[in-house]
């Protein structure tokens, strides 16, 4: 299935965007609260929020690929039985951005995690 891609330009250098993407204290400010996250291949962590009806309240994450200040790819399992082979990808591109800035491109699969074969 095709991926969905969302690209954002931020007027900040890639090193700073990378810090916001990988520093647990900063991640908690814009996403969920990470438990045990480090931008290191093989790292397994949880992202925790309030449980809701139909959602257990945390996401299990495994870091699959890291290129410092360039690329972060991780699996993202929000519910039991979801397929870990469907990773999320965050790519940073300083070239494509309005200078001085960064283009952050997020890719995710265009199907729910339990819907594929």
């Amino acid at each position, binding site marked *: *299935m095709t991926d*969905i891609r*969302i690209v*954002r330009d*931020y007027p*900040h*250098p890639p*090193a*700073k*965007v990378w*810090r*916001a*993407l990988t520093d647990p204290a*900063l991640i908690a*400010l*814009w*996403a969920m609260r990470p438990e045990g996250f480090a931008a290191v291949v093989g790292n397994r962590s949880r992202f925790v929020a309030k449980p809701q009806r139909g959602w257990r309240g945390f996401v299990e994450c495994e870091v699959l690929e890291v290129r410092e200040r360039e690329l972060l790819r991780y699996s993202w399992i929000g519910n039991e039985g979801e397929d870990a082979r469907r990773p999320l990808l965050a790519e940073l591109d300083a070239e494509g951005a309005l*200078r*001085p*800035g960064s283009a*952050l491109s*997020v890719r*995710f699969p*265009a*199907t*729910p995690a*339990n*819907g*594929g*074969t």
Partner: protein
Amino acid sequence: MSRALATESVFQVISCPTRRALLDTLSRGEKNVGELVRSLAVTQSAVSQQLAVLKRAGLVREHRAGRFRYYRLRAQPLAEVDTWIARYRAHVERQLDALGQVLDAMPDEPEEAP
């Protein structure tokens, strides 16, 4: 629960490249099996098998005209896919908005200066 199952099946149906190719071809107008086999370069049995799956999922409608059966795209079930993508996209967009606000509030470190 049956609604969730129906949603899942549409996603399963379109996860197969041959079935997506069939839907693409049928989106340009109705066709019979022979025409589908020629335009997709797959075997007739593969086309028939995948058409049966598409019919069961309500994505394709069949009708007879003379010796031939014709197939037509029925796109309504794909609205489920659109809904899911729109919801997920909105979620990611909200997080990226929040990331922008965090970045604006973060001081630059010396080595991060552009």
